[in-house]
């Protein structure tokens, strides 16, 4: 529990007496931004639909490429990350920093699993399916639409990481400097763990697909495997309890604004998933 929460007393997160409407500025900003983002994804989805409904001759059939089982799985993971995000918002509104941290970390990991699925999928479609950005309009619209969504997820993950690290800001670090430097190290360890971890994971998938087996995998990738373990260890070390922290109910609106963004990105995927993966528009000549 933060010391702020102990002194600040009751904070009403849905009503801000200093604004004309009672809605906090950050929340209103986020809603307006999401309205803008609706038009952004709307334009992309429209582009995709136009080319799906009127495919040029010789277009590839997406049904030959997609693995609905895999994408359904990662869709489920993404939707569950929204649940964790909602629990994080709920926890911070009660000033429960420990639970907030756990839920934020869970959201980050679920977001990364979704991104990992997308990286695997893109790689698979290019290498096995022969679908590239440039060899058909279907490829152009598919990679642009799902890639833009992936970019949104990635930005969301970075933001979540930033918020997660902010939950460690100590109350007594009056100049803020030591904490910022430590936060930067924390972030670097995290970024390293993601990159190296993703690499080792994909190497494992690759070894499995090629039929090389575990012994081959460990002998060829022991450096990156060890690095992943070390970086995860560093993350756990950074995540140890630092004493009283300057993060509490007062930050609830920050977490909530971020949650709105995260839910929106998930909801957009609920539109993209059926439009791109499930509906069978294509009538090949």
């Amino acid at each position, binding site marked *: 529990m933060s010391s702020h929460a102990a002194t600040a007393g009751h904070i009403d997160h849905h009503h801000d007496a200093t604004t004309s409407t009672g809605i906090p500025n950050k929340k209103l900003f986020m809603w307006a931004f999401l309205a803008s983002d609706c038009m952004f994804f*709307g334009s992309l989805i429209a582009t995709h639909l136009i080319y799906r409904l009127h495919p040029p001759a010789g277009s590839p059939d997406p049904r030959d490429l997609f693995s609905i089982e895999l994408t359904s799985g990662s869709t489920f993971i993404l939707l569950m990350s929204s649940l964790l995000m909602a629990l994080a918002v709920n926890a911070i509104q009660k000033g429960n920093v420990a639970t907030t941290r756990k839920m934020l970390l869970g959201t980050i990991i679920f977001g990364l699993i979704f991104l990992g699925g997308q990286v695997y999928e893109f790689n698979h479609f290019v290498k096995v399916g022969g679908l590239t950005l440039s060899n058909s309009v279907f490829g152009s619209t598919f990679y642009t639409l799902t890639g*833009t969504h992936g970019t949104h997820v990635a930005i969301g993950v970075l933001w979540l990481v930033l918020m997660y690290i902010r939950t460690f800001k100590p109350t007594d670090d009056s100049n803020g400097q030591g904490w910022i430097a430590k936060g930067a190290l924390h972030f670097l360890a995290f970024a390293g763990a993601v990159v190296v971890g993703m690499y080792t994971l994909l190497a494992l998938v690759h070894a499995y697909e090629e039929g090389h087996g575990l012994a081959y995998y460990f002998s060829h990738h022991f450096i990156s495997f060890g690095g992943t373990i070390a970086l995860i260890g560093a993350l756990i070390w950074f995540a140890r309890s630092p004493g009283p922290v300057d993060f509490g109910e007062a930050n609830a609106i920050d977490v909530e604004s971020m949650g709105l963004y995260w839910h929106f990105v998930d909801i957009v995927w609920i539109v993209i998933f059926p439009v791109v993966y499930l509906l069978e528009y294509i009538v090949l000549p």
Partner: protein
Amino acid sequence: MDQSLTKSDFIGHDDHAPAAKRSWMFARPDHKTGIVSWLTTVDHKRIGFLYGITALFFFLVGGAEALMIRTQLAVPNNTFISAQTYNEMFTMHATTMIFLAVMPLSAAFFNYIMPLQIGARDVAFPRLNGFAFWVFLAGAIILNVGFFHKAGLPDVGWFGYAPMTAKAFSSEFVGDNSTDLWVMGLQVLGVSSVVGSLNFLVTIINMRAPGLTMMRLPVFTWMTLFTAFLIVLSFPAITIALVEVMMDRNFGTNFFEVSGGGLPILWQHLFWVFGHPEVYILILPAMGIISEILPCFSRKPLFGYPIVVFSGAVIGFLGFGVWSHHMFTTGMGTVATAAFSMATMTIAVPTGVKIFNWIGTLWKGHLMMRTPMMFALGFVWMFMTGGMSGIMHSAAPADAQQQDSYFIVAHFHYVLIGGSIFALLAGIHYWFPLMFGRKVSEKAGKWSFWIIFVGFNLTFFPMHFLGLNGMPRRTFTYDGNMGWTSANQLATLGSYILGIGIAYYFIVMIYTYFKGEKVGRDPWDGRTLEWSIPNPPPAHNFDVTPTVHARDAFWYEKTHQAEIAAEKAKKAAEDEAHGGIHMPSNSWFPFITAAGMLIGSLCFAFHYIPGAIVGLGITFFGAWMWSVEGPGGYHLHPTKSDGDASSASH
């Protein structure tokens, strides 16, 4: 700017983390004067001033480009500039005037005037406001880099129609990267516009003074709100279209490449879904300015205030339903053509309603024919003329004849210069005394009005006939026996007069800034809150946040002085009990984040990927530091003692 700040103001104090203990990298800049204070400013008035100066600079650049176009067309078979240079000039003239002159000049007024009109101390997100300006400047630099680089200026027209933007067409000339610069520059400008508009939206909805209900908002603030809505909802469409062009050019996609199965017409739809609301983005702020000036100089409240507001809302709404009237000749089919024809005729109704409201305001008013009023009256007349020819285009069969002729050029210059620019020039005259405490001499102001007015009409009225006689727009030269010579010569003569008028206007403004007649607060006997504060405005705007009791709040204050004074004294005591006025601290990170975007986008346009990655890194670093820096802030005590009006302490 901010001359009223005294040394004692500098003793700002960061509430959240004492500045003294921090090392340079994390220190908050607390400069109040000098270059650093301008780079790190979060004061909406200073940011508004930066927008205004930059916009006026690009207004002159765009004007010079227009004069080159007119000089080339002065005589048949002219060889003053090459066809390639001509293409660059009309592309850059339109892009500059729309994105780098009219929109940011409107943004200057949104920044400077709107928070004052709603009784706010600043916008909702002060650092984001600074960021929006620096990103705008980055986009402007990217668009104009071709002046100094062999890549050349963009030459694809401001519509950027596919397939002219395709790789195959741009490598034909020297300027292989010029289209990349255009694409990146517009995307960066889009970020600036959307971020700035979100900020204004939240500010107007959430930061109004107590008692300032929506139906008491000054009309200029209303039009700011509608403009912000339009920008927030229309810019994503062009961003996507630009992203798709960028990918076509750089990553081999086929969005608009016919050979790869792409549809060039898709570009037109995405472009005009943005492009038509854009014309209302350009005119709504102008309508807001006019709705402030006409009542002030007619000594009457605005006639039919609710109708003016609702018609603005209807224009904003219908603005999204008329985009395909730019595409009547693309063969959309009869149903679509009829529907968009009707929608276009319908949108003229709320626009015409506004003109009747302005005439109603003038009716039986005690008109004071000052310079801002002259420009405002010129606006009403010329905007009406431009509106008339607009109605003519809405009929699809007529449009089929007029499309891409000089008739269209005449039409949109009547609404964009006769409309937007005249209103913005009126606004500069009107609010100049508020910003700088000096007033333009009436004699010089009226001379500049008449020269600009005559020059403008002489330039663009003949273009109606040029268009009806079949002269196409964007044509580089013409033959002497086409019958277009005399009208072109008249237009070129007019454009020189217009240029002289604008130059004279600028000289008058610069003279007035240094030597003009000094005036006190409220020289026009204004009606809205921005006139109630000292002149020039202090950093904290209002010593006491005003309480609003009626529409035209300052007018009400003037007629109820005793009770307002008592109310203010009570509120000042309350403020002091709460620790004084909280002001936001300056910050480096909006500037750094925007600089990263400039470096990254510029390097990407030149296909220098390491530089693009470095730029992206700087952007992320700036955003990260921005986030952990916190809002900061310090306290002012403007009403603590009689002698020292704004001492700071904590």
